[in-house]
């Protein structure tokens, strides 16, 4: 697999070293945008589809800009058009049906869809979102897309013989969508598979699904995989066989307790290291984030290190999310400068 990282180095990047800074995807929605959705979903309200589209465009524009102001190298629109990571896609895939909300925990619910017929790709899922964001952004845009294993496990399967069979059927659709995204110009695509963390014994199914997805993806496209909130030792080192260039992992939440998992055997891919805890409203200082980034240098050399939050930041208050991102970007630039000056040891480079 070729090195796809350099295309994301900003033209005015000051340091020789380049730690790619980015986000996992989601961002807190502005309150007026949530209110607009409520109005749109309220049959009695005088608020039509055009006005809802306008709200989504406005929110996407503003949050894209907020990422750029935080000085991140690769950005998203904060997923302003998406409500939930399975529901959004299931609404666009033929073969899915909705029956109502189910409990996740306490009074948190989600509209868990049912697969009631063969799944089919009939319309693009994210091309409009990508094109709009790329158009309003100066920085390169990353596209997060929910992976087929998570789409399968977080649905009721009424049709396919097994979850595995459904996963592969969905993988073919994800492959089709990625092809459309690549045609539209996308060069950084992140597959989100949080369900893998909950059932790590299925890592081979995820591997086979990724083979189907990665097939025919051009070499200059950066393909990443995001997995969070699980025991990584149960999928490592097997995951190194996956046909992706980068793993985006949640590690700050557990105080980097799991970092040693990736030291033996050697980590052979790029590491997108979670350096911000997204379930803590306390903003990590630049100094603290710099120490977190250095943890990543125990695993990979700087040219293979990406810096990002643990997961989507959508549950944080918006100003906290912004400050965390801005500190992340600043911390990365400072670490780069110290690397340039030879002031930082890189354990991973010595091995």
């Amino acid at each position, binding site marked *: 697999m070729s090195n796809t990282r350099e295309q994301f180095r900003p033209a005015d990047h000051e340091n020789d070293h380049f730690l790619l800074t980015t986000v996992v995807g989601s961002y807190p929605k502005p309150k007026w945008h949530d209110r607009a959705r409520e109005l749109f979903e309220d049959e009695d309200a005088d608020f039509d589809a055009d006005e809802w589209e306008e709200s989504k465009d406005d929110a996407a524009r503003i949050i894209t800009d907020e990422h750029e102001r935080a000085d991140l190298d690769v950005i998203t629109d904060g997923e302003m058009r998406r409500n939930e990571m399975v529901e959004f896609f299931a609404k666009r895939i033929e073969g899915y049906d909705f029956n109502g909300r189910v409990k996740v925990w306490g009074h948190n619910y989600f509209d868990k869809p049912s697969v009631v017929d063969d799944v089919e790709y009939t319309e693009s899922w994210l091309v409009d979102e990508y094109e709009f964001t790329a158009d309003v952004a100066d920085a390169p845009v990353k596209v997060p897309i929910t992976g087929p294993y998570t789409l399968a496990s977080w649905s009721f399967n009424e049709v396919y013989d097994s979850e595995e069979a459904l996963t592969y059927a969905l993988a073919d659709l994800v492959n089709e969508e990625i092809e459309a995204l690549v045609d539209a110009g996308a060069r950084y695509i992140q597959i989100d598979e949080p369900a893998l963390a*909950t059932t790590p014994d299925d890592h081979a199914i995820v591997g086979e699904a990724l083979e189907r997805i990665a097939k025919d993806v051009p070499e200059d496209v950066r393909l990443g995989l995001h997995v969070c909130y699980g025991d990584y030792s149960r999928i490592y080192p097997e995951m190194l066989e996956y046909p992706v260039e980068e793993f985006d992992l949640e590690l700050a939440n557990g105080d980097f307790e799991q970092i040693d998992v990736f030291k033996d055997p050697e980590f052979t891919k790029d590491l997108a290291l979670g350096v911000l805890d997204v379930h803590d409203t306390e903003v990590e200082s630049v100094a603290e984030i710099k120490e977190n980034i250095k943890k990543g240098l125990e695993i990979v050399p700087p040219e293979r290190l990406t810096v990002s939050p643990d997961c989507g930041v959508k549950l944080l208050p918006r100003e906290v999310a912004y400050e965390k991102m801005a500190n992340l970007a600043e911390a990365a630039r400072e670490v780069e400068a110290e690397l340039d000056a030879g002031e930082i040891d890189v354990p991973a480079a010595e091995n």
Partner: protein
Amino acid sequence: MTEIVATTPGLYPLPDRAKDDLADRKGHQKSDLISGNEGNAITEAYDHAREEVIERQQTAGLDRVVEGQLRWDDMLAHPLAVHDNVDTRGIVRYYDNNNFYRDPVIEGELTPDGDVASELDAAAELVDSGLQAVLPGPYSLADLASDEHYGDDAALLDGVAQFLAGELEQFPDVETLFLLEPSLVTDAPGDGDDERASKAIDTVADAIDAEVVVHTYWGALEEKVHAHLLDADVDALGYDLVSDHEQTIYNVNEYGTKDDVALGLVDGQNTLLETPAEIRERIEWFSEETVNDFETVYATPNTELFYLPVNKAEAKLDALASAATEEVSL
């Protein structure tokens, strides 16, 4: 003649209106979940929801009616989560599901507190006959807990069993008690622990004058666990035919089972609806594959029902009830 009794293992989905209403009243965070001393408005909201769920079971024509356990924010861990000597801490995964509950950390003796009994008292007002209580079995409840008081697994299991027995003593009259023991399958007890698990069930079952069913799910029991469970003085064992019928048949034919049996015939975790005919076929299949002459077959979903959207959970009640009323040749 075998009697088919249509029932459920409880833990119903909250009616959709109650989902919003209670979320608004209580909040979405960990600290907002049920504590056991909620105020009047919340109690009333649950009273309404309970009425709705009981009425729906009666309309469907189920032979046993459960309270619904709509207050059980922490699912089967609920009786501990509301206890004064238990501290609820981080959110942890509920078995192999995308569901979470508060880790109940036992910090002191589990004295009976009547929380479940008061729910059943309220249900008893609405149910003339066929009231069924549902509790976690002692092995599963101990498995879901963290212990900082009893010191070792045996003492914990004993403490939990005594606690459940004490709770049962406060129950109103019920026809049937379902003790849910998924952990006997998912985290099977090893040598010695299997015997203890069975004795703990005895402790609980002895505390009530009702038909006691120990229901297991998410797979079949290991042979030895099944053999030990047969020593428990209960009226029926429950088997999950949805997730593993082959091993279950083997266990029953190899080791026997009780005079009554509960069969998990309907998938509590899939929206795909079983028809009454399919449910009857499954009962007949089980009867043909085994040599037993059952007095009672409890026809039930394999798991709790809260995994399902309300409309599908209700449709499954209708199918079960009509499967039980049709002529069944066994």
